[in-house]
């Protein structure tokens, strides 16, 4: 057996991080925004079946960018985690914080111990009974967690889109207003001086956690309903 070359831990972690970041940057962005009655998720996605935004539990949703097979696996794990917890204790005992911690440990462990990091970035959001109770956690490929307020943009060109959203977002916006902002941000040209794209409703995947709904608050918005909201 030949001796492997020595690679410093710094270099090893940097290589892995670069690799994960490159994979994530290839995908389209997801925008998550708080509004007066809940939390909205929007992304450009032509598929009606392969979702990037999904329901985890009564008040918890999941949004992801990166490699589909990897985040799909994490999504299913999240549903299992939440349902098991809700079954063992009670439905109100399932929290986004607990799920975010489980995801963070998983992402962190894979990042440091397995040969390839997961090329995903996640948002775990929980809608509260009042806007102050909303929680949005952003999880990076290496397991780092940030507690976000107001909005999150992740995926390719996250920085450019983030500046658009941060300029337009304010607390207490309505659903049509945040969706308009989200679609405008998603249509932002990739380069300075490019033209703004108009994304038709059929190309959008939009979902909300609506705090006014009883029990299961997650709802997908599509078809005529979404068109009406975008025109409002």
């Amino acid at each position, binding site marked *: 057996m030949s001796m492997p070359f020595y690679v410093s831990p710094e270099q090893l972690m940097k290589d892995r991080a670069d690799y994960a970041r490159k994979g994530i940057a290839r995908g389209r962005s997801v925008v998550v925004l708080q509004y007066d009655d809940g939390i909205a998720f929007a992304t450009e996605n032509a598929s009606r*079946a392969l*979702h990037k935004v*999904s*329901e*985890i539990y009564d008040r918890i949703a999941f949004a992801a960018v990166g490699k589909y097979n990897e985040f799909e*696996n*994490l999504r*299913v*794990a999240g*549903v*299992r*985690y939440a*349902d*098991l917890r*809700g*079954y*063992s204790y009670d439905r109100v005992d399932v929290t986004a914080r607990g799920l975010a911690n*489980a*995801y963070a*440990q*998983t992402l*962190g*462990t*894979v990042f440091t*111990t*397995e*040969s390839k990091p997961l090329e995903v970035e996640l948002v775990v959001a929980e809608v509260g009974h009042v806007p102050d109770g909303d929680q949005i956690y952003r999880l990076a490929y290496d397991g780092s967690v940030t507690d976000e307020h107001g909005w999150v943009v992740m995926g390719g060109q996250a920085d450019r889109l983030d500046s658009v959203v941060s300029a337009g977002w304010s607390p207490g916006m309505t659903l049509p207003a945040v969706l308009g902002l989200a679609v405008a941000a998603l249509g932002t040209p990739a380069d300075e001086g490019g033209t703004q794209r108009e994304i038709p409703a059929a190309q959008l995947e939009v979902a909300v956690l609506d705090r006014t709904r009883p029990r299961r608050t997650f709802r997908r918005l599509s078809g005529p309903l979404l068109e009406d909201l975008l025109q409002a």
Partner: protein
Amino acid sequence: MTHPDPTASGRLPYAFTTPGSSSFVDFLASHAPTLLPGNRPVPVGDVQAPHGTTIVALAFDGGIVMAGDRRATMGSMIASREIEKVFPADEYSAVGIAGTAGLAVELVRLFQLELEHYEKIEGSLLSLDGKANRLATMIRGNLGLAMQGLAVVPLFGGFDLDRRTGRIFSYDVTGGRYEEHDHHAVGSGSVFARGSLKKLWRPGLDAAEAVRVAVEALVDAADDDSATGGPDSTRRIWPVVATVTEAGYLRVSQDELAGVAAASEERRRVTHTDRGGAR
């Protein structure tokens, strides 16, 4: 390069990230088998536990009605006057359970979760037949307890979104699944309820008439079966009655049931002349 003990690192155990199954029951069986009702040691000898009684279901134009009385008994004692035995299984189906109350409620909880879990993971609803078969599998898992007298006998019904019609399924303790036509009843008062349903049910009922027929059947069951509770106007406890239609599961309101129960009582009162008591 994998960690020798995945749980030691704090990551989600591999059972969570193993792809393939959309069933919560299968997941529990592999990850936490002690949480499954069928995997517990079977008690020896007689177990005294509250029993839930009569459930009726009938089809009407555009859906089904399911209704259950509110009594649970333990031997000759009334264990509960306001137990609920009819539940939404998911948006388009209802399940009512007669038998050992504790096991029944646990089974319903697991069944509801099984359907929701599938829906979340697959992104689509199970077919009505698929739901009925899942319930049969879960009943079968309870066979050991059923042999000890702790049987759970459900009645399942829902709106079939493919066939655009309401359908009813009954079960036996071994997990046998039988599709019922028009109407059915389970539990100790079911003999009397079935007789009542036979006379009162007719094709082409609307939802309000079907609710009335369901309540009448429960009143008839309560009349002759001591384990079935009738409408209790003193405490204002009415049966749990729900309709399942294209619009989904809808529980009939307390006010409507109070009206239906009062009308039923009035109708019965006028047919009885005074037979006297102590004079």
